[in-house]
C-alpha cells in the first residue's frame, strides 16, 4: 500500500513536472519570437521577457485550473500564463496589436488578460493586483461559490516596496483568503539592486509580519519550484490562508528588450542564481527519466510551429480602426460626452 501511494505520488509529480516543463518550453520559444519581432521593428512599445524565470512562473500557473482558479500575472509570466492555459494567440495578437486580441489593440504586451475567465489584465502600477485578486476571491466567498478555487499572483522584488503590495497582502491575510503570492526575487528591479530596494536579509522574512506562511525556493531549481508551488497552492486550497513564496533567481536578460542589463555584475551571472532553469530542468527531467531528448525535441518543434502559426495569424489580422473605435471608457455608451 505504502509503495503504491509513493508510485501514485511519483506519477502525479511526473505529470505535473512534465506539464510545467512543457509550458516552459512553449513560453521560451514564444518569447524568443517576440524578441526577434521587436528587434525587427514589428512590435511597437516594450517587450518584457520571463527568460530565466520560467520555472517559477510555470510551476505556479500549472497549479491553477483555467475556469476555476484566478491568476494575476505580472511582467515575467509568459510561462505561467501558458501553463495556466492562456492561448498563445492572445499573447501574439496583443503584442502585434491585432484588433482580434483580447485587448483589441487598446492595451499591449503584458497588460492583456481575460478577467472573467480568471486571468487578470494587469495595470502597470506595481503591487496593485494583490487586492484585486483578493476581491475576486472574496466575491466568491460571499456568494458561496469559492469552493476550492485559489488565486495566485507574481510580483518582483521591486514591487514589494510599493504601498499597494503591502496593503493588498495585508488585506488577503486579514481575510485569510486562498491566495498564493509569489515574489520572484531576481535581485534587480530594472537596474536597481536589492540592497537599494529593501534591507531585510531575505524577502521571505516578511511573511511572518503578515501572519502568513513563507516558502523559500531556488527559482533556478526546476524540480524545487514544482514542489514548492504545488505545496503552497495546495495549502491555500486547503484553507490555510495566503501563502507567500519567495523564489530567488536572476533575469536572463535586460529589464525589457530595449535594455541589455549590463549593470548586472558578472559574478552574479556566474552564481547559482545565474543558471538557466530550462537547462537545470532539462537535466533533472532527463535524469529522472521523466522526459527524453526526443520528446523535448518534439515539444520544441511543435512549439515553433504553434508560435509561427500564431504570428502568421495575428500578422494577417487588422489593426484597430480609429474610425470604428468607441472612444468611450464607459460601458454606458449614452453617457459618452465627446
Amino acid at each position, binding site marked *: 500500500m505504502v509503495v503504491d501511494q509513493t508510485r501514485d505520488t511519483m506519477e502525479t509529480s511526473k505529470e505535473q513536472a512534465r506539464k510545467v516543463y512543457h509550458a516552459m518550453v512553449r513560453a521560451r520559444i514564444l518569447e524568443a519570437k517576440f524578441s526577434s519581432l521587436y528587434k525587427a521593428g514589428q512590435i511597437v512599445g516594450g517587450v518584457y521577457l520571463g527568460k530565466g524565470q520560467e520555472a517559477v512562473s510555470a510551476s505556479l500557473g500549472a497549479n491553477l485550473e483555467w475556469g476555476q482558479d484566478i491568476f494575476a500575472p505580472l511582467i515575467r509570466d509568459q510561462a505561467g500564463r501558458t501553463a495556466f492555459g492562456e492561448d498563445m494567440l492572445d499573447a501574439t495578437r496583443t503584442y502585434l496589436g491585432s484588433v482580434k486580441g483580447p485587448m483589441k489593440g487598446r492595451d499591449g504586451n503584458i497588460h492583456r488578460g*481575460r478577467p472573467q475567465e480568471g486571468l487578470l489584465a494587469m495595470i502597470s*502600477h506595481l503591487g496593485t493586483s494583490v487586492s484585486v485578486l483578493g476581491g475576486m476571491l*472574496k466575491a466568491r466567498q460571499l456568494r458561496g461559490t469559492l469552493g476550492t478555487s485559489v488565486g495566485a499572483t507574481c510580483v518582483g522584488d521591486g514591487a514589494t516596496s510599493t504601498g*499597494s503590495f503591502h496593503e493588498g497582502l495585508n488585506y488577503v491575510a486579514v481575510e485569510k483568503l486562498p491566495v498564493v503570492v509569489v515574489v520572484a526575487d531576481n535581485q534587480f528591479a530594472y537596474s536597481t539592486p536589492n540592497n537599494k530596494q529593501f534591507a531585510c536579509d531575505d524577502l521571505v522574512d516578511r511573511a511572518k509580519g503578515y501572519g502568513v506562511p513563507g516558502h523559500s525556493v531556488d527559482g533556478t531549481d526546476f524540480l524545487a519550484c514544482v514542489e514548492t508551488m504545488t505545496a503552497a497552492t495546495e495549502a491555500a486550497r486547503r484553507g490555510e490562508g495566503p501563502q507567500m513564496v519567495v523564489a530567488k533567481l536572476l533575469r536572463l536578460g535586460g529589464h525589457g528588450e530595449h535594455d541589455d542589463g549590463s549593470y548586472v555584475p558578472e559574478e552574479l551571472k556566474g552564481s547559482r542564481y545565474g543558471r538557466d532553469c530550462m537547462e537545470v530542468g532539462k537535466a533533472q527531467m532527463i535524469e529522472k527519466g521523466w522526459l527524453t531528448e526526443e520528446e523535448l525535441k518534439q515539444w520544441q518543434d511543435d512549439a515553433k510551429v504553434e508560435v509561427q502559426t500564431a504570428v502568421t495569424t495575428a500578422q494577417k489580422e487588422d489593426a484597430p480602426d480609429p474610425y470604428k473605435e468607441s472612444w468611450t*471608457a*464607459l*460601458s454606458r455608451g449614452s453617457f459618452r460626452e465627446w
Partner: protein
Amino acid sequence: MPVTYIDAIRDAQYKALEEDERVFLYGQDIGKFGGAFKATKGLQDKWPDRVMDAPISEDAMVGMAIGAAIEGMRPVVEMQFADFSSVGFNQIVNNAATHFYRTGIPVPITVRMPSGGTPGSGPFHSQSIETLYAHYPGCIVLTPATVSDAYHMLLEGISMDDPVIYCEHKLLYRWLKSDNYDGDGLPIGKARITRSGKHATVVAYSAMVHEAVRAAEILKAEGGWEIEVVDLRSVKPLDTDTVMASVARTGRLLAVGEAFPWGGVTAEIVSRITAEGFHLLDAPPMRLNAKDSPIPYHPKLWAAHRPTPESICHALKKLLNY
C-alpha cells in the same frame, strides 16, 4: 418623521442590500460602529457578511472592490473622508476607470466620498475633489444636493455598470431634511431647474445649490431679480442641454462650486456653454469657486474660503450689471 440627507444615504444602502444580493458595503469602521458619520448604522446587524470593516488601506479597499466587481458583485466603498481617497486614487482612476475600455469587462463599483467643508474640519477633512475623478475618463461622478437625490442617485449609481464616484456633502448630512424620499424621477445625467428665473442662471451642485438659492432669495428681496438656479446633480455626465436651455432664457451664466478654482466643474461648464451657446450670452459667463489655498481650519477662515450667499450675490450683481 422627516428624513435627512444622511438618512437617505443609509436607507439607499439598506434598500440596495435588500434588493440586490450582489451589493455589499466595505469601509473603515462601517460595521458594528456604523461609520464615522453613521451612514451604515445597523446595516451590519442585518447583513453580517455584506457589511465589512476594512483596514486603513484605501488602495486595497478600492482594489478589493474592483476584484469583486469583476466577479459580478456591486461593492459600495465608503471613504471615511473624500480627502483620503487620494490614497485610493490610483486604483480608482487607473484600474477601475480603465478596465472596461481595456478588457470589455465593466467594474460596477460605487465609491462614497464624504465631501465638502464643515467648520473646523481643516485642510484634510473638507475637500471637494470631484474634478479629479471627472477629469480622468471612465467614472460617473454624482453630486446630489437634495435628500431625494441622495437617495435615488445612490441607488441608481449602484445599479450602473460603470464606476461611480458618489460625492455626498457632509454639511448637508443632518441639516438637510425632507418629508420623504419622493423625487421627481430625474435620471442620472439630467440636471434640475431648482428655482426658475429669467435674469441670470446660476449653475451649482451639491451644497452650493443651497447657497445659490439663498443668494437668489436675497437678490429677489433686494431688487426683484429673478435668478434661475440649476442643480447639475452629476458633474460627469454633465447635462449641458439643461444649462444651455436656461442660459437661452436668461442670457447670463454664473457657475458656482466649492472646489478649488483652477480647472474643474465650473471651468467645464463655462467652456461648454461658450462653445455652443456663445450667441445666447448677454454677458461674459462667470465662475465662483473656493479660494486657491488649502481649506482652513478656523471657522472664520473656512466661511470665507468657500462661496457664500453674499459672495454669490456679489458675483451675480456684477453679472447683472454687465
